[in-house]
């Protein structure tokens, strides 16, 4: 499977990559986006099987990316990996069509629990 990791922090993209590996999902092809606009464009051009997106990013926020993708008919499975896990944001994420919201700080166990059913 191809996974798009969108986060404006290179350090965090690296941590997400490392955590995917630690959670047993190391064999997947990874594509990275450094801001929301790039995430949106790569979600269309790269046709990933899953998007793991930060919420707070320059150019477009993660929720804007998700809404733009859905408005454009792109139904790629999409989940948030964000430091903000308020009920308000979880609701917004769900309403926009997100499958999950993983809060930072996360562990490999969190990834296993949430991504296991999706990545197999």
């Amino acid at each position, binding site marked *: 499977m191809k996974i798009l990791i969108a986060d*404006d*922090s*290179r*350090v*965090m993209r*690296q*941590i997400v990559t*490392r955590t995917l590996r630690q959670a047993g999902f190391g064999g997947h092809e990874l594509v990275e986006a450094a801001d929301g606009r790039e995430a949106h464009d790569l979600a269309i051009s790269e046709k990933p099987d899953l998007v793991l997106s930060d919420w*707070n*990013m*320059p150019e477009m926020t993660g929720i804007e990316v998700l809404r733009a993708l859905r408005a454009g008919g792109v139904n790629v499975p999409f989940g948030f990996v*964000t*430091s*903000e*896990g*308020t*009920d*308000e944001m979880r609701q917004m994420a769900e309403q926009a069509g997100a499958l999950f919201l993983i*809060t*930072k*700080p*996360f*562990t490999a166990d969190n990834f296993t629990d949430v991504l296991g059913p999706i990545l197999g």
Partner: protein
Amino acid sequence: MTSPTTDDLQAITEQVWLSYLDPEGINPFLPSEEAPGMPCVIAAVSVTGAWEGHVVMSFSEPASKLAASALMGMEDEEVTRDDIADAVGELVNVIGGNVKSLLPDGSLLSLPHVATIDEGVNKWPAAVEVCHLRGSWQNEPIAISVWTSKSTG
């Protein structure tokens, strides 16, 4: 309105250290009263909307480098200034996001701002400190503080 407390900062910090900076539990963040002196690296996120203020982390320069190398899984000497800015910015983003979850709905978190301060003062205009946590990590000082704008505090 309930404001974040030092105990909240302690709980959040413990989680961040266990997840990213000290997953093996070898080098925990130990509370102490020593604050980083100058020069130091400051990383801050602002909260606007229903609650207004700032979450600020300050690191001694060696602490900022240690944080970057731990987060990136690199040796200290390989770490660049950009790596440090990215790493401490992400740390304050994670801690700020968790602080924000204690604040009223309708608050917005900014992207992180990072600066190295060689001398002088670091001032937050019209803001008062709500709580702080000071500690040392691998014998280097790190402090975390939450500030609220006077008008909303």
